[in-house]
């Protein structure tokens, strides 16, 4: 079973602060995703990646950067955090592959509070 871990699990910062959320998957998946989950909005895709060095923009990218340093590691960066970015963040990975529609494996989430 795929293992997706996230750190930190909880983070509190102030407006204008610099935050990095980390995600690691250990099942050699090519695809990784960052979502945010908010009441009334469900999960929304922020950024995703096909592999190391690749980055694609999701549905709600404003205010976020991301970097995929290796196949295993995907980071979400908030360089000037705002209260509107207070949310529960999930990382996910999937195998993908042509013709294959693979399920996504989710990490446990990071709860971020921006004061």
């Amino acid at each position, binding site marked *: 079973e795929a293992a997706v871990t996230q750190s930190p699990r909880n983070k509190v910062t102030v407006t204008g602060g610099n935050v990095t959320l980390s995600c690691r998957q250990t099942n050699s998946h090519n695809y990784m995703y960052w979502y945010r989950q908010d009441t009334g909005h469900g999960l929304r*895709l922020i950024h995703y990646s096909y592999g190391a060095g690749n980055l694609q923009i999701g549905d709600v990218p404003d205010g976020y950067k991301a970097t995929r340093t290796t196949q295993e590691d995907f980071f979400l960066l908030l360089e000037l955090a705002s209260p509107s970015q207070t949310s529960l963040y999930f990382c996910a990975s*999937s195998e993908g592959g042509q013709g294959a529609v693979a399920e996504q494996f989710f990490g446990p989430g990071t709860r971020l509070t921006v004061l």
Partner: protein
Amino acid sequence: TQTVSQSDAHVTVFEGDSVELRCNYSYGGSIYLSWYIQHHGHGLQFLLKYYSGNPVVQGVNGFEAEFSKSDSSFHLRKASVHWSDSAVYFCAVSGNNYAQGLTFGLGTRVSVFP
């Protein structure tokens, strides 16, 4: 662009009852549909998926879902719920380029009472 709607925000059932969670989607092309479960304080876990073939798909823990192209639906069902099925259930859709990530519904919270 694909969209997905889950008409029920909260469903309450008793242990042993059956349950059906509704999911409707809109998309013009080939579509990939899935259901995920989220227990309180945890990430989402995959339940089942449909892409083609038999419109009734079986998932883990006795869940099944049925795809209907005419109704644009992918409803989730379970014949007899257990208290451990209390969770939030998300329907998700993706178009041809499934690698672009999933579009999730708002979720349906299921509360199972003894």
